[in-house]
Structures are given as C-alpha cells and as structure tokens.
C-alpha cells in the first residue's frame, strides 16, 4: 500500500489512472477487483478533499498567521 502521508495530488491521480486503465484493459482479476475499487474510491475521496479543503500544511500556515496577528 502506498503511504498516504506525503502523496501529492498528481501521484494519487497517477495511481487512479493506472487502476482505471487496468480495468479498461481487462488486466484485473475479479478476486482483486473489490480491493482495487476500494483503493480507487479512497483516492477519489482524497483528491476531492484536496480540491475543496485546506490540507494540514495550510491549516498550519493559517494558525501561524492567526497567532502572529494576535
């Protein structure tokens, strides 16, 4: 399993693209399909979050900024 902590959006997208193309090209065994779909859904959730939510580093910046303003 790829470590989640520092994965970038682009890396996550690359993983997702790989899974989708494996499915498209019929390269996945039915046995691992469920697992792969689960992984893909996790990536999609991760990426969607990236689009709409501040990540931890930004939160840190924001809190630093607030502190310095106080």
């Amino acid at each position, binding site marked *: 399993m790829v470590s989640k902590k520092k994965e970038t959006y682009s890396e996550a997208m690359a993983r*997702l693209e790989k899974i989708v193309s494996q499915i498209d090209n019929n390269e996945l065994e039915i046995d691992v399909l469920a697992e792969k779909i689960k992984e893909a859904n996790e990536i999609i959730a991760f990426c969607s979050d990236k689009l709409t939510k501040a990540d931890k580093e930004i939160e840190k910046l924001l809190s630093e900024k607030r502190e310095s303003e106080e």
Partner: protein
Amino acid sequence: MDSLSLYELNALVRRSLEQCLPDECWVQAELSDVRTNSTGHCYLEFVQKDPRSNSLIAKARGTIWANVFRLLKPYFEEATGQAFVSGIKVLVQVTVSFHELYGYSLTVQDIDPTYTLGDMARRRREILKQLEEEGVLTLNKELDMPRLPQRIAVISSPTAAGYGDFCHQLENNSRGFYFYTELFPALMQGDRVEESVLSALDRVNARLTEFDAVVIIRGGGATSDLSGFDTYLLAAACAQFPLPVITGIGHERDDTVLDSVAHTRVKTPTAAAEFLIESMNSAADELAMLASRLHEGVRSLLQQEQRKLSGYKNRIPSAAYRRISEAGFSLLAVRKDVAQAVTSSLSRHRHRLELLQQRLEDASPEKLLARGYSITLKDGKVVKNPGLLHEGDEIVTRLQKGEVTSIVNRKSSNRK
C-alpha cells in the same frame, strides 16, 4: 553707434521670432522637471539628449496652461497608460514665444500620444530583447502551472478594488474549491512601483514552498500609470521567478513587459481568479472523468463476467441433456440387444428341449409298442427272464392297442 536697450533687443528678438516662425509646430522632446502648481498650470522642461552619451544637447522651458492641461493630461494618460511625468518622450504641438523678461519658452497646445506609445513600445521591445539575449525571457512561461494552484501569493495594493474583486471571485467559486491567499502588499502606481513589487517578490521568494503561484494584480482607477511595469529589473525578476506568475494588471492596451514575461497574462484581477478556478475546474473534471471511467469500467467488467458465467451456466444443461440422451440411446441399443439375445437364447433352448423331448418320446414304451414290440407283465411287473415263470402262470401281454391275458403252457429256456 546705435545701441538698443536690453528690452528693445528682446522685443526685437520676440518680433523676429513671431515673424519668421509658424504659429504652431509639432516638436519631439523628452519631458523633464514636470511640475504643476495649485492653479493647475503645468511647468516643465523639454530636453533632448544625445543618444550615445545621454548628455543634454537641447533644452527649452515649457508651459501648459491649466485649461489645456486639464484635458491633455487625462487624454494622454488614458491613451498611453503612461503618467505624464518626467523621463517620457512626447510629441507636442507648441507655440514658440519669447518674453522680454522670461525669455524663450514653448506653450503646449496639443499632444500626440501615439508618438509616446511608439516610443514606449520601442523601449519595451528593447527590454524584451535584452531578456531574450540573456536567455531568461520565457523561463517563467516554461514553468508548469501546478495541477492545483490553491496557495496563492497575491502582490497588490490592499486598498485596490481589484484585490477585493480577486478575493471575492476566488472565495465564491461555484464548486467550492479551496483557495488560500496571502497578500504581499505593494504600491501599484506611482514611481515606486518597481522597487515595491520587487520587494514583494523577494518576500514571496523567501517562502517559496508555501505557495503554488504568484498573482500580481491592480485594478480600478481610470488613469493608468503602467510605466512601473515596463522596467527591466521587474521583468527580469518575474521571468526568473521560481513560481508561475499570473498578471492581472487591469488594462486593455498592449502588454507591459511584465505581462510579456509572466507565465499567464489576463486583463483583470477577476480574470486572474477565473483562471485559477478554471485550473481547479479542469483538475476536478479530470478526476470526475476518471471516477466515471472507473465505475463504467467496473460495471462493464462485472457484466462481462456475468455474461461469461451465465454462458457457462446455460451450457451446463445442454451438455447434460446431450449426455443423457446419448446415454438413453445406448441404453435403448443395449435393451434391443438384450431382447434379441434373450429371444435367440430362448429359441435355442426351446430347440434343444424339443430334441430332448423327441428323444424321450422315441424312448417311450408306447413308441416301442407302436413299432410292434410288446411287454410281458406278471402280477404287474415286467417279465424279462422266462425262468421266473411257471407253467400255468397268468401273464399279461401289453400291446400298442390293448392287453392280452394268457396262461403259460410250455416254457422253453432261452431261445438260443
């Protein structure tokens, strides 16, 4: 010897000038020492420099009366995007006058902004050419815009309307994308634009990892003083900046040098925000497209497996039926064989039985009797030896068609 008073001489000069010069003429010159007083009159100097040595080779005092200047200044600045300040080259229509006390001066009647525009364009071209020769002209354009430009360093004036527009536009994006913006304040007009924007860029540069892109915006204000964005130092800094720079300087005319070297150039701060949102849109669309391809792919894969499976399932009964009917046929065949075998075996046995019967029949006494043999009985027992009979014994002779009872008269021993 005739002599003139100074006043007379100056008056003579004045008359000569007025006589031999046209009323108005167009003159190219550089502005210098431009000042306006409280009544709105503009006093300045026109100069000409030697292009090589840059030393002054001509100079004239000039005046623009308030009634002219009130119209001329905004007209010029609107048309050129350039403040009417020292250091720029202009083409002005002047009347030449000579005053006995104040001397030679030019009074400006009109200005042709296209000349200044041409001169500015030439200067911009020169800066761009220099950047190109130094190999840095397109460096910023060659940077990849991050897939998610979400952390934005904004260089603008905090009070500029454009900054508010930009933030408002970003925050109200329809798909709820997250953006983090931080303002690095800078002067966006006046003659300190260059150093102020450069210092803001330096401050961003110190925190490079915290940002995805830089946005330089200004907005509002009818007159535009964009000359600050046409400088070599600023252009060089922007071109070599490690983050993509987006400019939204808010003007319609030709690009400033800063626009020319920026990664992306848009017209307004709002458009800069739209550009960022659009980048996010395309990332989001890509994600949605992949997600739907994933679902499609999985569904079709499952359907395909389902079809395969039901194909097999359907083939099982037909295979089974085939086997059963094959078995049935062979069973029928066997049964037929068995019947035949049984029949023939039975007939064989019957035949043998008949033969046996025949033989039995052949061996029966009736047959012998029929052939003329007879059986002699005494007291119901078969007599085979005449020695056992005595004269006078009653014997019974059985023939084919009945019995005869006789009395023994004479007895001979074995006929031999």
